[in-house]
């Protein structure tokens, strides 16, 4: 028998990931043993600290790149930028939850380590260059989210949401594994680089590639489930509505961003050779996603559901950047992700501030007259709505601008057109919230509650949204730098 | 075996059978032989247990049928065979019928990997130990089927308890075997036995030790702790007192067997005793050298073998007989310990059972795995594995250091866990008492 060899492993390349996982594991025990009931906020602060440390650990790695674990994991600037985005998303979500959980009587210390584990899954998705690792990342992310979705335990909608998400998520995971198996059957490898090499060697004839295409299709379906692309989006509104609001915020940005980031890597590197096959499919998906997502949001009076549909629509826009698969497209993707993440987290923060204890109604009527009561909150919400709609001085505008130009330059002009039209439709329901806040009298007495965590969240998100909108150059530069030597 | 049959059929009788037919005939012969031996062992065990427990309880036990009651089990068997087979009206007929088969078949099947003597193993699987445990857990499915199909409250409760207990104690059992797998580097039961030559110190640890077949793992701290944990887990797996909660007759009649009668009941009984035999056998094989003992190695070396073509088959015969004798003696000894435990201990409560398994045995076996790593590291590893400082030590010193170190780890772990466990149990007792006092109405 050949002597077994463990391939050399460079753990430095995984430093942020390891920091998050190690910190979360330790925090789990610290929380159980040292932090008494009722002081669980401390766990939250420690979790935020852990995420920030992980982000800092990533800083010196900016000029490092390489792959390890036999090429299953890679560290490049693309993954590092994504790591930072995910760390910010995780930290802001925890900040939102700090007071939300005790207010709703569902405070348990596990919430914070779970978010950290989810962030670790997202980082794994960003760093993975092997279908198996991507599967691991998706599962690590999903399983923690199943729990988090059902975290508002006695509330039935939360349980229902968790159940729904679990069943559909498991279904999607099944698709993913079958897809991997078929791709492996066709190419003999699960590594993205290996698949790309196989496709480069092969002159592609459709009938020889049935297995490969079927596998790639199944992987695509799984990703569509996770990113809630139409027609795989049915679960999204229910799950967002049922789950605790900070979790919904986290999911709307985090899951989506991580899965799309991984999808970009898969499509752009592994399956670049069969672009002719997947491009029309994805284009159709993106088009209906944009249309259905935005049209669906039109009729909603529940703000959480509206934000859910809006997140579906935004996934469509982000998909544009992925499809182009050029440097421009990937840049636009990263930029859009950052802008969308901050904006959406801010919007959810305002929703949390308005959320009354023990209620499961998030009516748009509650926003009526908010300007008279809490002018700053109303202004912040208006800013986020403008940004989501893509109105000029905000981050959302710049992001949409970049993504549409990238799509146009990439030869997907008609999709860019669909995007512009749907954005115009979307403006209606985003601005409806603004109109309610500024021009109508309150329908009922709603006492907005603000606290340190929420304040920080809304302020950071608001300032960033404005900043990215007004001075986009450094961020674009960052996105451009991130794509240097992308590939691994 | 194969050569022997081949010589007989194609050589002596000149039938000219193809190779696969000869092999098949050989396998069928071995299997049939084993399955004749298994019920005999079970019959003997029932008699043995009844007599031994009677002696402990100051009774005589069965003594009427035949000399000293030796035919009693046969009489019981005949009675079972001719009893009416009652299937309750509410039961699920087919599952009810299938359950005893699902319980018995895997149990018999586990005989496949147990070595009886030198070279006397039905199948030398390279994953024998894993096979043993994989198959043993199938019968849990059968128990659940029995409890569910009976449509009886006692049966279902008994089945739930049985399954919960079996799965809980399977983990410490398997974990304690991992320590031995780490020491030997193999899952083959035959090779695990072969690794236990020596005299107190295994020849594998210290080359040059005279090999009299006494290098059992039980003589090392790692093996001793593993053996204790494994045997306790085996008591629970085999549903022996003090872990006979699934069939606690004072609480739930007969557990999952409540609605079974006649030979179906007999099959459950058979499965249980065969399982007990096998668990004792595996304890003997893995920790106490199986057929290893003074003389077997020497006899086998004199016998006919590829390495020694001049040997005489008489020695093979004697080696085999002596090996089987040692093996059965150890197995019967462990079964005696099982009976002894039944005579000495009362039954545990369910919560005590679960606590003991999860909070005491599992941590202890986990520590033992670490001990095993230390043992292997000190006795076997050298500079190429990254341990420079042990290279200068003599093998005896290495063995001594390993022994002392693992002993220290295990004793400290045992004392700590025992103290923790006792404290937890005491706290629990206080809570129970307070609840009891609190529930008594104060104003009469």
């Amino acid at each position, binding site marked *: 028998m050949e002597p077994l060899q463990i391939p050399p492993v460079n753990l430095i390349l995984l430093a942020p990931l390891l920091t998050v996982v190690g910190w979360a594991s330790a925090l789990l025990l610290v929380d159980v043993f040292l932090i008494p009931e009722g002081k669980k906020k401390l766990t939250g602060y420690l979790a935020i600290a852990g995420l920030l440390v992980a982000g800092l650990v990533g800083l010196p790695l900016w000029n490092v790149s390489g792959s390890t674990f036999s090429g299953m994991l890679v560290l490049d600037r693309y993954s590092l930028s994504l790591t930072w985005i995910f760390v910010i998303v995780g930290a802001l979500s925890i900040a939102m939850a700090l007071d939300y959980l005790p207010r709703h009587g569902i405070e348990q210390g596990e919430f914070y380590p779970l978010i950290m584990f989810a962030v670790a899954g997202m980082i794994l998705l960003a760093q993975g260059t092997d279908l198996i690792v991507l599967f691991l990342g998706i599962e690590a992310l999903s399983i923690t989210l199943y729990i988090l979705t059902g975290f508002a335990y006695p509330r039935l909608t939360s349980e229902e949401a968790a159940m729904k998400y679990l069943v559909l998520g498991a279904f999607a995971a099944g698709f993913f594994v079958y897809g991997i198996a078929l791709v492996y059957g066709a190419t003999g490898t699960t590594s993205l680089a290996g698949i790309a090499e196989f496709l480069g060697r092969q002159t592609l004839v459709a009938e020889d590639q049935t297995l490969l295409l079927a596998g790639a299709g199944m992987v695509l379906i799984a990703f569509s489930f996770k990113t809630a692309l139409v027609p795989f989006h049915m679960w999204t509104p229910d799950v967002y509505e049922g789950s605790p609001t900070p979790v919904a915020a986290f999911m709307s940005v985090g899951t989506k961003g991580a899965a799309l980031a991984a999808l970009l890597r898969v499509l752009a590197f592994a399956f670049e050779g069969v672009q002719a096959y997947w491009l029309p499919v994805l284009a159709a998906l993106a088009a209906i996603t944009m249309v259905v997502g935005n049209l669906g949001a039109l009729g909603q009076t529940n703000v959480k559901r509206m934000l859910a549909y809006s997140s579906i629509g935004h996934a469509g826009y982000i998909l544009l950047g992925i499809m182009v698969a050029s440097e421009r497209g990937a840049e636009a993707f990263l930029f859009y992700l950052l802008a969308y993440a901050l904006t959406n987290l801010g919007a959810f923060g305002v929703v949390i501030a308005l959320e009354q204890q023990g209620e499961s109604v998030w009516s748009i009527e509650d926003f009526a007259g908010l300007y008279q009561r809490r002018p700053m909150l109303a202004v912040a919400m208006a800013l986020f709505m403008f940004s989501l709609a893509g109105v000029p001085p905000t981050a959302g505008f710049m992001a949409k601008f970049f993504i549409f130009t990238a799509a146009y330059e990439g030869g997907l002009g008609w999709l860019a057109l669909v995007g512009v039209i749907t954005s115009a439709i979307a403006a209606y329901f985003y601005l409806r919230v603004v109109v309610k806040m500024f021009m109508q009298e309150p329908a009922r007495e709603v006492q907005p509650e603000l606290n340190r965590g929420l304040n920080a969240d809304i302020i950071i998100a608001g300032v960033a949204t404005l900043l990215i909108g007004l001075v986009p150059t450094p961020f674009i530069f960052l996105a451009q730098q991130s794509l240097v030597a992308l590939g691994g | 075996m194969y050569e022997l049959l081949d010589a007989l059929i194609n050589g002596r009788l000149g039938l000219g059978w193809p190779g696969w037919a000869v092999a098949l005939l050989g396998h069928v012969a071995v299997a049939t032989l084993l399955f004749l031996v298994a019920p005999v062992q079970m019959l003997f065990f029932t008699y043995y247990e009844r007599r031994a427990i009677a002696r402990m309880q100051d009774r005589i036990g069965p003594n009427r049928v035949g000399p000293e009651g030796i035919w009693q089990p046969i009489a019981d068997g005949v009675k079972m065979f001719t009893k009416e087979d009652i299937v309750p009206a509410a039961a699920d007929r087919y599952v009810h019928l299938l359950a005893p088969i699902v319980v018995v078949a895997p149990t018999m099947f586990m005989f*496949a990997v147990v070595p009886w003597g030198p070279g006397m193993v039905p199948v030398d699987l390279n994953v024998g130990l894993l096979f043993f445990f994989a198959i043993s857990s199938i019968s849990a499915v059968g128990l659940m089927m029995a409890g569910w199909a009976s449509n009886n409250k006692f049966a279902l409760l008994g089945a739930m308890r049985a399954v919960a207990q079996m799965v809980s104690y399977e983990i410490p059992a398997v974990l304690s075997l991992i320590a031995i797998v780490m020491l030997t580097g193999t899952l083959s039961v035959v090779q695990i036995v072969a690794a236990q030559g020596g005299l107190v110190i295994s020849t594998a640890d210290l080359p040059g030790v005279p090999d009299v077949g006494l290098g059992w793992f039980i003589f090392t701290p790692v093996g001793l702790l593993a053996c204790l944990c494994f045997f306790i887990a085996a008591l629970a797996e085999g549903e022996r007192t003090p872990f006979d909660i699934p069939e606690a007759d004072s609480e739930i009649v007969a557990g999952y067997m409540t609605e079974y009668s006649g030979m179906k009941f007999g099959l459950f009984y058979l499965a249980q005793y065969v399982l007990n035999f096998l668990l004792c056998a595996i304890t003997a094989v893995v920790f106490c050298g199986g057929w290893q003992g003074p003389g077997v190695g020497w006899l086998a070396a004199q016998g006919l073998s590829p390495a020694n073509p001049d040997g005489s088959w008489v020695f093979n015969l004697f080696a085999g007989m002596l090996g089987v004798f040692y093996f059965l003696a150890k197995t019967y000894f462990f079964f005696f310990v099982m009976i002894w435990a039944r005579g000495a201990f009362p039954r545990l409560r369910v919560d005590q059972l679960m606590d003991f398994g999860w909070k005491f045995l599992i941590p202890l076996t986990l520590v033992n795995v670490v001990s095993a790593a230390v043992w292997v590291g000190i006795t076997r590893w050298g500079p190429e594995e990254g341990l420079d400082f042990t290279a200068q030590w003599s093998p005896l010193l290495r063995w001594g250091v390993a022994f002392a170190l693992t002993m220290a780890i295990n004793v400290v772990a045992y004392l700590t866990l025992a103290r923790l466990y006792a404290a937890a149990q005491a706290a629990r007792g206080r809570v129970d008492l307070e609840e009891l006092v609190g529930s008594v109405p104060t104003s009469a």
Partner: protein
Amino acid sequence: MLGAYLPILVMFLIAVFIAAFVIIVSSLLGPRRSTVRKLAPYESGMEPIGPAIRRIPVKFYVVAMLFIVFDIEVVFFYPYALVFRDLAGPGLVAMGVFFLVLVVGFVYEWKKGALKWE
């Protein structure tokens, strides 16, 4: 390679055959005189109340879940224990991390009371 499992297959068939055979023979030998009372569920002589199969306490499911988690981890342990000596240092470190994760989970569930049987 798979040839080693032929005797296993033979043994399996014979084991199933013996079990089935015994049941068939005993059902031929034994009498059949069933009455309504005899076919009723056995409840120590009381009239059965309600169905036997009802909701099962959740603690059994907790045990089942813990078992699955641990059993899978133990199954990962076995291949490692086999090649433990060949892997030497790096393997020990890797398995140490695995072991540590296992212990973290174990300590956590212990402290959370998942192992408590009420």
